[in-house]
């Protein structure tokens, strides 16, 4: 085959144009090519077939869902029980329940007009706490918007959460963003932004920088199944694999992107089905099983760092709450469906049953913790509500590292205007100079 084609063009003219190949090596290459065992295309690594056969996308059952506990919280295969200490498991439980309590209070506060917006995490507490507990606190987290539990696990205080939601003078974000757009430098949690999926290629770049700095850390990137449809998601998965980045992609597949159910979001085997296509180690887990999430994340982290490669985890779960305070999900799903997940497959109750079976928890502790938790949340809430907002001139800060003259000029003009029309601006709510 190939030798004949070379003869037609004239081996000499081809060789003359290929500065790097001499005639001797060209005939050697021709011998190897003609052995015909595998396709030689540079982009190929597979075998030949003479059967005209299209691969059916439903050819196989889908990547299985890894679990440790059944829906009632009973460990199925004892070898998979991570054997975490009572202290650790209790901390996990308290973190999930505190998150749940904070969600209830802040959702209600939006309804009462105290904060402008809120997003709850109902039903997904297991994905947050299970994964965060398996990371190093210095691993950099890039989130989407429904991962508050990871911040809570790391130690973001109730005051810090509420200050951000109220946008008050103690908000780390200086009142610049809507509620739930948390960020923390100390806790290595990159500030949330509203555009979906943008965090994904950023997480890859950060992981590359971590790899170069040899700091022994990885990057954790959370996103939803809806977000995985964004172009940035494809970019991120491809870059992470081709550039060998220590990043864990953690997809919270909670069944809905606002009102769009997952069957309208993708037609293939979810998000996990895409991992192998990108050349990536992949697993699908029961997101409502804290131990499954923990085990998978722990292993993913070990692989990402020791082998310098990305890992994809698709955590199957269910969004029990509305998308946000701007959504009423009864418009697109039945109350019965929601009730099923709340009552029959909830990460908090499954973990509680595990703790009960170990004798680590009881009704008395539950009652005491519930009251304590509620009190903590309510007092933080009251504190946050009372605080003033930041000085309105924060509008002009942090656009650039240094304030350029044109922004300074605009600030000055507004200062003069506010002085003249002071009674028309809500100055009493804002910190003075």
């Amino acid at each position, binding site marked *: 085959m190939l030798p004949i084609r070379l003869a037609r063009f004239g081996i000499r003219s081809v060789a003359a144009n290929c500065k790097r190949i001499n005639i001797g090596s060209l005939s050697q290459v021709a011998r190897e090519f003609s052995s015909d065992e595998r396709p030689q295309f540079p982009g190929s690594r597979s075998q030949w077939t003479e059967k005209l056969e299209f691969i059916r996308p439903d050819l196989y059952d889908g990547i299985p869902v890894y679990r440790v506990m059944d829906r009632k919280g009973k460990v199925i295969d004892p070898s998979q029980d991570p054997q975490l200490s009572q202290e650790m498991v209790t901390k996990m439980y308290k973190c999930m329940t505190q998150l749940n309590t904070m969600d209830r209070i802040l959702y209600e506060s939006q309804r009462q007009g105290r904060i402008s917006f809120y997003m709850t995490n109902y039903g997904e507490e297991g994905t947050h706490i299970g994964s965060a507990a398996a990371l190093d606190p210095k691993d950099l987290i890039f989130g989407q918007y429904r991962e508050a539990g990871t911040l809570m696990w790391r130690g973001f205080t109730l005051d810090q959460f509420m200050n951000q939601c109220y946008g008050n003078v103690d908000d780390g974000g200086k009142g610049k963003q809507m509620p739930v757009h948390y960020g923390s430098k100390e806790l290595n949690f990159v500030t949330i932004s509203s555009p979906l999926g943008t965090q994904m*290629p950023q997480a890859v770049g950060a992981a590359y*920088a971590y790899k170069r*700095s040899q700091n022994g850390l990885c990057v954790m990137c959370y996103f939803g199944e809806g977000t995985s449809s964004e172009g940035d998601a494809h970019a991120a998965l491809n870059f992470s694999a081709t550039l060998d980045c220590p990043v864990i992609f953690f997809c919270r597949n909670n069944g809905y992107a606002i009102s769009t159910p997952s069957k309208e979001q993708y037609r293939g085997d979810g998000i996990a089905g895409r991992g192998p296509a990108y050349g990536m180690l992949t697993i699908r887990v029961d997101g409502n099983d804290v131990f499954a999430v923990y085990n998978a994340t722990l292993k993913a982290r070990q692989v990402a760092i020791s082998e310098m490669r990305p890992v994809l985890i698709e955590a199957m779960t269910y969004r029990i709450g509305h998308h946000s305070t701007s959504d009423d999900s009864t418009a697109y799903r039945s109350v019965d469906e929601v009730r099923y997940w709340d009552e029959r497959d909830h990460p908090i109750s499954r973990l509680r049953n595990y703790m009960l079976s170990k004798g680590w928890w009881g009704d008395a502790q539950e009652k005491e913790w519930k009251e304590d938790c509620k009190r903590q949340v309510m007092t933080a809430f009251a504190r946050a509500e009372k605080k003033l907002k930041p000085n309105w001139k924060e509008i002009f800060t942090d656009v650039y590292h240094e304030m350029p003259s044109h922004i300074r000029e605009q600030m000055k003009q507004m200062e003069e205007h506010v002085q003249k029309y002071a009674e028309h601006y809500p100055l009493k709510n804002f910190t003075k100079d």
Partner: protein
Amino acid sequence: MALRTFIKRNLILNNKCPLRISQRLSHFTFVPDTVSASEGETQRMNLFQAINNSLDIALTQDPTAVIFGEDVAFGGVFRCTVGLQEKHGKSRVFNTPLCEQGIAGFGIGAATAGATAIAEIQFADYILPAFDQICNEAAKYRYRSGGIYDCGSLTIRAPCSAVGHGAVYHSQSPEAFFAHCPGLKVVVPRGPIKAKGLLLSCIRDKNPCLFFEPKILYRSAVEQVPVKEYTMPLSKADILVEGDDITLVGWGTQVHVLREVCQLAKDQLNVSCELIDLVTILPWDKETIAQSVKKTGRLLIAHEAPLTSGFGAEIAASIQHECFLNLEAPIERVTGFDTPFPHMFEPFYMPDKWRCFEAVKKLVNY
């Protein structure tokens, strides 16, 4: 007969083809900058060599600096990164998959995590998929986090502007899109000496910077460039020719067009023009332009990008506000038309010296 012989005999050598690509006249003459002897040893470099030199310095001095994008490993389609992978290693100069939004996002993340990230977008025409990452993310990273996170160590370079035959998708000048985005810096060099210093300034600047390199200057712009390391200030316009009658403002390739306009005005109209290279589009040096217009009373702005909402519109609006009583004539803008950039009609599309000269006459005779 062989294909090559056919082409040789019938298309190239018989000169029957009316407009050989290589024969088309450039719409400008590059005028090199010079530096004083106190800048030390210089070396003859064209624009891509000066950029290459600047990148080399950045990588040598900053161990966290990395360069990435499509085809940068072998040297880049415009040779700006030649030799850098060999010198600094594969982990520091590397190809990414073909995806501008990925390149920009990756760069933002690397910068956030402490690396100096120097991204290349192969043509400014293809920067638009990265628009969300650049404007919604990079530009707002510091602001929205209350200053605790930023991607200031990100620089994105892209070849821009007309090249003679680039047509719709290899000729664009997208600076105006990004000028509208607070948080970014946008810089356009006019030649090798400026480019080397400005690029190093952008790389070291603590804000995300876009560096648009006029691709027609890559080979045709040759200067004696100082070999030492140096930076040039951002947001500072350069007065290249002093004059009293008209202020001419441009950037990139257009600066050289306007130089010829200065000469034409002097020779044919006895009009003295003050030529200003804006250099930085955002934040732009309003003071220098305003000061000049207060002196001359007449302003001509020229750019290749289309007229409506081109950056000339911002300059015109600001200057008429600053210098209203000083103006002797309405501000003139000579720009690309409000059309996509055409292929065969490039000589008619460009804001060439004749269209600029005509605008000068209008300003003078108002």
